[in-house]
C-alpha cells in the first residue's frame, strides 16, 4: 500500500485528544473568570459631575444615609437626592465653594444634576431596598464602607450567585434589632439568627426564579 501521509500524522489523534479538553477548559475558564461581574464590575468608580465625598458627609460629619437616600425604607429604589436636599445645608455652609458651582446652577435653573449611577442591576432583576432594610440587612452589606469613600466605588460583584449566597444563608448578614442598618462599622458574621426585626418570624429569602425575575 502506498504511503500517503508522513509519519508525524500519527500524532494528530493524540494531539486532538489533549488539545480538545484543554481548549474547552480554557474557553470555559476565560468566560467564567474574565467575563464575570467580580472581574468587570468590582472597582467601578465613575467620576461624578460634582465631587461629592461620602467620606466627608457620611463619615466625618456623621450624616445618616437616610437623610439623602430617604426612600430606602419604603420604596424599591434608594433615591438619589434632589438638589433641594443639598441646598438644605448649602444655603448656609460653603455657599461660595467652587466645587458646588454645579449644585447652585442646578438650584437656579431647576435642571437636575446628572449623577452617574454606580450600582447597577439588570432590568430583569427586581431588587427592592425596603424589604432588605426591613429584614435588617445593612447598607454596608452590599455597598461596603461608603463612609470611608471619597469617591464611591463598587465593592461587591452584585452577581446572581453573590445574591444567592446571602439568600441561601442570610443569618450572618442580618443585624440584631439593636444595631441600625445604617451602622457602617457593624461586622458581617456577628448576626445570630435570621429573624425579622419587626415580629421576630423566620426570614425565608426567596431562592426561586420569580423571587427576583418577575
Amino acid at each position, binding site marked *: *500500500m502506498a504511503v*500517503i501521509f508522513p509519519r508525524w500524522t500519527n500524532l494528530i489523534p493524540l494531539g486532538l485528544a489533549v488539545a480538545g479538553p484543554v481548549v474547552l477548559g480554557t474557553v470555559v475558564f476565560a468566560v467564567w473568570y474574565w467575563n464575570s461581574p467580580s472581574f468587570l464590575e468590582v472597582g467601578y468608580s465613575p467620576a461624578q459631575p460634582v465631587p461629592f465625598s461620602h467620606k466627608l458627609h457620611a463619615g466625618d460629619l456623621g450624616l445618616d444615609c437616610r437623610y439623602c437616600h430617604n426612600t430606602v425604607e419604603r420604596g424599591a429604589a434608594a433615591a438619589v437626592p434632589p438638589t433641594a436636599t443639598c441646598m438644605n445645608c448649602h444655603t448656609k455652609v460653603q455657599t461660595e465653594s467652587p466645587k458646588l458651582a454645579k449644585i447652585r446652577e442646578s438650584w437656579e435653573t431647576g435642571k437636575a444634576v446628572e449623577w452617574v449611577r454606580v450600582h447597577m442591576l439588570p432590568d430583569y432583576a427586581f431588587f427592592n431596598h425596603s424589604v432588605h432594610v426591613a429584614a435588617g440587612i445593612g447598607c454596608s452589606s452590599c455597598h461596603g464602607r461608603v463612609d470611608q469613600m471619597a469617591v464611591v466605588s463598587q465593592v461587591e460583584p452584585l*452577581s*446572581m*450567585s*453573590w445574591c444567592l*449566597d446571602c439568600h441561601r444563608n442570610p443569618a450572618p448578614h442580618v443585624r440584631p434589632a439593636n444595631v441600625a442598618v445604617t451602622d457602617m462599622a457593624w461586622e458581617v458574621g456577628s448576626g445570630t439568627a435570621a429573624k425579622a426585626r419587626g415580629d421576630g418570624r423566620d426570614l425565608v429569602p426567596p431562592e426561586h426564579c420569580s423571587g427576583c425575575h418577575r
Partner: protein
Amino acid sequence: MSSHEHTASLLDQVARPATGYDPVGGRDPLVTDRADFASITNDVCGVIERKPPVGWWVFFLISLGLLGLLGLSLAVLVYEGTGVWGINSPVGWGWAIVNFVFWVGIGHAGTLISAVLFLFRQKWRTGINRFAEAMTIFAVVCALLFPTIHVGRIWLLHYVFPIPNQMGAWPNFRSPLLWDVFAVSIYGTTSILFWYIGLIPDLATMRDRAKSKIAQRVYGAFALGWRGSTRHWQHYEVAYLLLAGLATPLVLSVHSIVSFDFAVSQLPGWHTTIFPPYFVAGAIFSGFAMVMNLVILARWAFKLEHIFTMKHLENMARVILLTGSMVGYAYAMEFFIAWYSGNPNESFAFINRAFGNYAWAYWIMMSCNVISPQIFWFKKARNNVFILFVVSVFVNIGMWFERFVITVTSLSRDFLPASWDYYSPTIWDISTFLGSFGLFGTLMCLFIRFVPQIAIAEIKTVLPAADPHGDPAAHKSHGTVEGAH
C-alpha cells in the same frame, strides 16, 4: 414480484444453491443476481465514482432549495423571536416540539437495525444498516435543530450545560427537558461513532480505488490508516460489538426520555405511564417507514436491487406492521385507562382528542398509523414496491400527526376553560418544518455521493462466496478482492 414468481425463484435457488440459498435455514438469499466479492465492491463504489444520475440532481437541488428556506426561517426566528410562530398561551409547545419528536423518532431505525439486529444475529441487516445509520444521524441532526431554536434566545443555549458561572445558575436536573439534552446528544454521539467505525474498512477501499490525489487524501485521512490486517479486523470487530452493546439500550432509553417530556408533566393526555414503551414503538415504526422510503428511492436510482432486495423490504414491512399494531394497541389502551381511571379530566382529554376541536388530526393519525399498515398482513402487499412506498409515506404522515395530536390537543384544552384556545401554525412554522426536510435531504444526498451507502466489507460475509459449504465456483473472485480486504 408475485408469489408465483417468488416460489419459482426459490425453487430456482434450490436447484442452484451457489446463488445464496441458505442450505440450513432455507431462507432467501441476502444478495441476489449472482454477486461476488468484486462485483459488490464495484457496484457500491461505482455509485460514488460514476457521475450521479439525474434523479440525484433533482433531489439534491430540491433539498438545497429547502435548506435555503430553513436558513431564511431561522434568520427570521432569531431576529424576531419565537413570536413569529403560532405558539401562545395556552399552547406554548407547537410545531417545534412536534417536529423534534418526529425527527428523533425517525432516528431510531438506524440504531435498531445496526445494533439490536446485530446482537440478534439478523444477517439481513447487513444490506441496509449503513444507509439506516446515516439516516439516523441526519434525523438526529434535524431533531436537535428544533429544541435548539425553540429556546428563542439561541445565544444563551449554553445554559443547558452544567458550566460554572457567576450567576450560580445550574441546569435543573429534575427536568425531563434536561434529560432530553443528554439523551439525544449521547444518542447522536454514539450513532456517529458506530456509523464511523463501521465505515473505516470501506473508506480504506475508497482510498485505494481513488483516482484523484484529493480523494485519496480525504478518504485516507478518514480511513485512519486501515490496512485490513488481521489485527485491525480483530480490533474492529471488538469495537463494533462494544458499540452495538452500548447503542442497544439507547434505542429504548432515548425515546423513553423524550416521552418523559410529556409524561412527567401533569396534563391529562400527557401524564401517562404507557408513554415510554408506546413512544419507543412509534419511533421504530416511523424510523422503519423512513428507511423504507429512502431505500426504495436509492435502489431504484442507483440500480442496487440486488443488494437492497425484496427480502429486506419485506422484513421492514413486517417490523412496520408489528410496531404499527403496538402503537394502535397503545392508542386503545389510553382510552381504556381514561375510562377505567374514572378521572373526569382524563376522560375529557381523550374524548376531546377523538371528537373535539382537533378530531381531524386524530383521525388522520388513526387511519395512517393503525389502519394503513394492516395491509402488510398480505404477502402480496409486502412484495409490492409501490404499496410499500405509499404506506410508508402514510406512516410518516401519521406519526407526525400523532405528535401533533398529543402536544396540541392536551394543551389547547387545559384545566382552565377560560384559557382554552385553538392553535394554528404560522407560515414560519411551516417553512421551518419544510426546511428541516431540506437539511435532511441535503445531508442524505451528500452521503450517497461521497460515502459507500452499503457496508461493502460486511455484506461480503453474507455472500454465497463466503459460505464454506457453498459452491466452490463462487470463490472464483477471490483473486480480485481489493487490497483493503
